[in-house]
């Protein structure tokens, strides 16, 4: 039986429709891999005692895709055995409990994909131009990731 080479691939998508864990994990599954690791970022219903009605995301889309692809390149340098990487991020309105981001990584053994998934979400929060607005009952707030590499720095 001829196996395809299963060339390592990065799947990066920003979309307004509901994200699918099945779809994202199936993208990275490989016959050469014994592990698929996943991170799902979901929306919480409260922040500092205020009720969150929903979230709204916007992005500098072209640059966000480029920055996520840079993250994928860095993953492959740090963990060369990683096979496929998928990062799907939702834009627009995201209702409570639905996923804002899903990251999936496959590798032959579990350590690399688990570490790579953590690296992906941490670095995404530090460097990808995507913004979240929390909508409360009477007001809203633009959130700021503590990981943001320039915020709170002296200018």
């Amino acid at each position: 039986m001829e196996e395809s080479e299963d060339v390592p691939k990065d799947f990066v998508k920003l979309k307004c429709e509901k994200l699918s864990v099945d779809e994202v994990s199936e993208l990275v599954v490989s016959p050469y891999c014994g592990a698929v690791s996943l991170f799902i970022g979901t929306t919480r219903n409260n922040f500092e005692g205020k009720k969150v009605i929903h979230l709204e995301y916007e992005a500098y889309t072209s640059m966000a895709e480029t920055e996520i692809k840079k993250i994928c390149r860095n993953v492959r340098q740090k963990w060369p055995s990683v096979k496929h990487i998928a990062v799907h991020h939702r834009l627009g309105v995201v209702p409570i409990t639905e996923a804002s981001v899903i990251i999936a990584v496959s590798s032959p053994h579990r350590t690399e994909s688990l570490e790579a998934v953590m690296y992906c979400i941490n670095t995404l929060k530090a460097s990808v131009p995507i913004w979240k607005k929390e909508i409360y009952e009477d007001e809203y707030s633009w959130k700021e990731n503590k990981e943001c590499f320039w915020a709170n720095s002296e200018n």
Partner: protein
Amino acid sequence: TVTLCGTTVSVLYFARSAELAGLRCETLSVPREITSLQLWEEIVKVHPRLAVIRDQVIFAVRQEYVHLGDQLLVLQPGDEVAIIPPISGG
């Protein structure tokens, strides 16, 4: 004011900066060579309400991050300059 050796760039506004400027994109004539801080000051002349976020923002020029400061930019016609408030993806 007369702008010598100027060029026209596309300025993109996101999140809070889009709310303060009241728009998402526009073209702006600026000097071809300009520091990132001077570029910020040119933009604030057009949209004074942006001044309140000066300490929180960074630029993306041709999709590379640039801090507000002394870095000299060499701008080409049609370059994208984005105002990037603190991010919150993920």
